[in-house]
């Protein structure tokens, strides 16, 4: 037997339609899963990180003080006051920086720049500065 009759007799139409549907839906599901795979991995990694991260109180204090220092020039001046008392009236920024590092003051570069910009550190020429209250 040949032709459409043969196809119908052997259930060919159903085989083709069901087969094609299965393979397309199967690969579509697989495509959907792998398209979300990186999102699922990211989500799992974030969840993993959240309970695992313990921020010490010291770091918190430090970061708070940094934020405060960066946004608040008065707080920076208060922090650096003891250092200015140690230095001569005219000093080089490198000396101030060394003292700040010695005392573990946070972000000395930013703090010194802020004090320059606010006019509390006055440039005298020849690479020397003085502190203006």
């Amino acid at each position, binding site marked *: 037997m040949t032709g459409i009759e043969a196809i119908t007799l052997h259930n060919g139409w159903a085989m083709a339609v069901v*087969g*094609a549907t*299965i*393979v397309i839906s199967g690969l579509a599901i*697989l495509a959907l899963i*792998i398209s979300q795979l990186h999102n699922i*991995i990211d989500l799992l990694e974030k969840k993993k990180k959240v309970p695992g991260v313990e921020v010490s109180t010291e770091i918190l204090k430090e970061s708070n003080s940094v934020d405060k220092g960066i946004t608040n020039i008065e707080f920076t001046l208060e922090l650096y006051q003891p250092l200015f008392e140690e230095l001569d009236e005219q000093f080089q920024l490198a000396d101030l920086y060394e003292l700040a590092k010695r005392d573990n003051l946070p972000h000395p570069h930013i703090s010194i720049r802020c004090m320059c910009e606010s006019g509390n550190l006055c440039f005298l020429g020849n690479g020397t500065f003085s502190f203006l209250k």
Partner: protein
Amino acid sequence: MDLLDLFSQFSKNTGFFLVDYRNIIMLLVGILFVYLSIAKKYEPLLLLPIGFGVIVGNIPFFKGFGIGIYEANSVLHYLYFGVTSGVYPSIVFLGLGAMTDFSFLLSNPKLMLLGAAAQMGIFFTLLSAMALGFAPNEASSIAMIGGADGPTSIFLTAKLAPELIGPIAIAAYSYMALIPIIQPPIMKLLTTKKERVIHMADLREVSQKERLIFPVVGVILCCFLAPASIALLGPFFFGNLMKESAVVERLAQTARTAVIDTATIFLGFTVGASTQGDVFLNPKSIGIFILGAVAFSIATGSGIIFAKIMNLFLKQKINPLLGAAGVSAVPGSAREVHMMGLKSDPNNYLLMHAMACNSSGVIGSAICAGILWSFNMK
């Protein structure tokens, strides 16, 4: 007199005496395959072993002495067991998995749909083969040629219609070798110049975790869907997991080199040798070759048309040429798509995207084999 008798008896056992026109035709086909593989470099990894196998298989011999591939206890028969049992295709899939990089597919999963669409050639050919009078088991085996996947075609034929392995394998591999001739005209016919120059977006970087999870998820989902494809997809995804895990690099390296090469040699050679003229040259084989060409063309066309349909709904258009790479002829069809893209626009690099479709096609055709095997289980 005794001397002459002995010589006469010996001469009757030689190939020169036993040869018939079918052997000569097949010997010429074998020589043609060897020529194409060496001189034209058409898929030499496949055509050379097959071509030489055809030559060996068609040397006339005295039947009944355990010489030929279809005679029990012959050496060739034992080697052929790897084909008829489906062992070689499974081993080839292991190596393929260890070679395949799914990053491109993982970074653009919608390309997987093109691999599914290209399998429509299989189901169209199933109907055509039935209409030509082939039984459902034979029609299913012939239809697999549309997947453009030699090992899968052989695997399914070994399970459903072992007597057709020779013509189906030769048809499948021949058409895979003829990709540079078959696919470009279809691609040109079904796409416009404007479509061919569409550039694909850059692929995102895929993490190792994604690449590790994919083979596990893939094997579970695909084999739950079509358990009959376990013999192919199991080794395939296992090979890929070995590659991606990076903890068994030695095994992965062996799988993608020595193991797959050994299986390919024996698969090609014994499939070639199975084309004995008296068994191979019959009207069914001619029908299979015609249907194979139809299957391959429909598979290529359906992938392209599906890509064009997808473009109706997508904001970021995909190059429809990629649909042609949905057939699982790795990497031949991806290479053709890339070349066609470059011809249309020298800056249009489609290779990585086409490889994504290709690897999806491998999975799709293995699922189809499982589905068709299930349909024919009684």
